[in-house]
């Protein structure tokens, strides 16, 4: 089952770089990350790549494989024919640091702008009571492993550096939605925040983010669309405005 594969790996840094050709051994059951590691150990000791869990749990190893955003550790070599060239490039939306490693600090900045979970007043630790059906909605979003592939693929920022300031991106729309749907969050106006500070209005529901999510989070259907609708409802529907005033939330 062992064969020699042809790999093209982008090497370079912020100043530029190019695709380099490698011939490298592939064994049964291996994933792209195994091959990158083999290159590192045998042909390119200083090849830069991020990884941790090698099991799709940490979201470190995102890259573009033959132009498609993938987790390298979850992409089996059996997806490719033996004579197919496998091209591995860094995520395009973020500035390159070196080789396959990009500067993802954009995402950490956006995370810092979202008002944190606000614990409900008067509920002591240990006294939190929530039904499984209610937490489940937010739990879907908390499955996010922060691979940032949805951010990478979203056309609003993929080739539009200028939009990054005003647009938080799908990863952080689900964070806002998660807090919005959290049964005990005392924070208010999560949906309004998504509109005013996160730029959810710039999203035109292409669903590219949902398609690429390795955790199969229904980013568009379950987070973005409900948030957009809620914003609209709340702005125009006097009943919701009233209800919001009465309940202090939503």
């Amino acid at each position, binding site marked *: 089952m062992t064969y020699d594969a042809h790999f093209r790996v982008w090497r370079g840094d912020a100043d530029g770089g190019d695709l380099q050709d490698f011939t490298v051994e592939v064994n*049964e059951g291996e994933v792209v990350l195994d091959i990158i590691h083999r290159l590192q150990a045998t042909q390119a000791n200083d090849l830069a790549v991020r990884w941790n869990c090698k099991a*799709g749990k940490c979201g470190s190893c995102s890259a573009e494989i033959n132009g498609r955003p993938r987790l390298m550790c979850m992409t089996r070599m059996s997806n490719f024919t033996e004579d197919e060239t496998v091209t591995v490039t860094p995520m395009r939306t973020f500035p390159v*640091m070196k080789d396959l490693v990009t500067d993802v600090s954009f995402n950490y900045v956006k995370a*810092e702008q979202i008002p944190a979970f606000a614990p409900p007043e008067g509920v002591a*630790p240990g006294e*939190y009571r929530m039904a499984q059906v209610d937490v489940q909605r937010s739990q879907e979003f*908390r499955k996010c492993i*922060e691979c940032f592939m949805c951010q990478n693929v979203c056309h609003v920022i993929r080739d539009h550096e200028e939009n990054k300031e005003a647009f938080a991106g799908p990863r952080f729309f689900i964070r806002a939605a998660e807090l919005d749907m959290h049964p005990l969050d005392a924070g208010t106006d999560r949906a309004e925040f998504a509109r005013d500070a996160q730029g959810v209005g710039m999203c035109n529901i292409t669903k590219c983010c949902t398609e690429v999510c390795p955790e199969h989070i229904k980013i568009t259907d379950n987070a973005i669309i409900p948030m957009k609708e809620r914003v609209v409802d709340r702005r125009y529907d006097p009943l919701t405005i009233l209800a919001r005033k009465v309940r202090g939330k939503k």
Partner: protein
Amino acid sequence: MPEIETHSYDVLVIGAGGAGLRAAIAARQEGLSVGIVCKSLFGKAHTVMAEGGAAASMGNVNPHDNWMVHFRDTMRGGKFLNSWRMAELHAKEAPDRVWELETYGALFDRTPEGKISQRNFGGHEYPRLAHVGDRTGLELIRTMQQKIVSLQQDDARAAGQQTGASHDKLRVFAETTITELLRDESGAVAGAFGYRREDGGLLVFRAPAVIIATGGIGKSFKVTSNSWEYTGDGHALALRAGSSLINMEFVQFHPTGMVWPPSVKGILVTESVRGDGGVLRNSEGKRFMFDYVPDVFRDQYAKTEDEGDRWYTDPDNNKRPPELLPRDEVARAINSEVKAGRGSPHGGVFLDIASRRSKEFILRRLPSMHHQFMELADVDITREPMEVGPTCHYVMGGIEVDPDTGAAARVPGLFAAGESSGGMHGSNRLGGNSLSDLLVFGRRAGLGAAEYVKGLGGNRPAVPEAQVAAAEQVALAPLQRTEGENPYALHAELQQTMNDLVGIIRNADEMQQALDRLDTLKGRAQHLAAAGDRRFNPGWHLALDLRNMLAVSECVARAALLRQESRGGHTRDDFPAMRAEWRAKNLVCTYPEGGGGHVEIVEQPMVPMREDLLALFEKKELAKYLTDAELATIPETHGGDK
């Protein structure tokens, strides 16, 4: 040569896993400024990989549970070698620490009454693990990551900023590696030295208190569930700074790692599979664990399959199935079955949940296991059994600490928590007891460090320039050699050595061989050369990590050679029995000054267990663990289940 960047904090935390983050939160909440350093991106520490859950006797599922039962289980799991004080604090405080996470925004799975749901796990008498499906570690790390951000937002508001976060008093230095601790003339901690992975820039952190929370050592072994981060850095930093390590001979081999395909060998299969009803079978289809219940556990486990199966629905009237014995027992049993020729096609045994639980149940309770096997091994666990075998998973050994404050032995200002500290788990850790350990002792170390710093007043230890220069030289050496050993090749040899010679079953001959080889490898490691420059250069990083792996491996091998008995995560062919006289002592590793960089080990008697804790056990049970002399002081009418 670019300048060395300097930062100053009251407390420096090395590690952004559960322990490090919880420590940082505690220290910041005490009003101190805190720097956090980690090798990966923020939110990617090893804790993210934890699956099964966090053990805490909240009693949400079975109201009979309480801290005393948890304490007993922990001591039994560790075969009584645990620091009883740590086991006590852990059992008592774990529920509060888990509940606290909900106030940070965590969303655990719920019971029908809306409380935090709890699941069964090996060695735990009652369902005890708070969990979120099989991605509990992700929930833990994300929750604390977000709590850190929320503290930074509080700081921003306090500074008059409308939105966003302030990094002035709490800052994360991601993708930054500490290579040396710095100490003043008196030996007290003064800070730490490291490099930034991105550009190879060098940094000095000035801090009167340093908390080590760097996790484990598994990357010294070939088959492991651990990531590249687990190179024992914190263990080695502490050794080199003059502190000591205990229990290093105890390495946990998790019984169920993936065995096929070869490239995923070692990746973890969560114990929840068994907690939720999965069973182990050999090639003859037999549930072999019934043949491997050791005497010490005979009374606590089911004798028949029927009884074991009834336990899942009626735990009060039946005993648990032996698949849920502590990990060391199950790992050894699997090893024996494979050796006896009753293994699975790829050298493991079968773990079967498909024939025992519905597809819906499996998909709900074990979604990431289903995904992992589907994607990586083409196995649908709702339809077919998995193939599993032991994998190096966790190190019980670690930095010797004061149980109450996390203060590391022998070095003022040094603290440790989490997997990098030792004592809590004795000779074997129970599943789920690590995540709770991180929370309980992370917080305690943060408070301990805060108290220490406040006690110093204005008298902060100074960083000696000579140490910085020496650390810089060591760090850059592999880049300056144009020819020498390839770090990847040396690493592979080290992993093979530890795997083959200091693995799950050990004997004196092999360990002696291992020590000889480690000696040679240590010599060769002097000549490691890293191709390329300082910018994000994994070859260089590995060259520096290897120094730590070699130091820690030597501790493991030397301590294992000395301990002439089998107990928990230390099994000797040549000394197969557990021996009470060995329970009464710890093996303490140090790097004596002028010792030529060799590990020295001394025996240290254990502090006898406090009366009231001893009283939680029946004398009959204590007799399995204590020496005759110890037993003689205990009255016949003593203790027992309450």
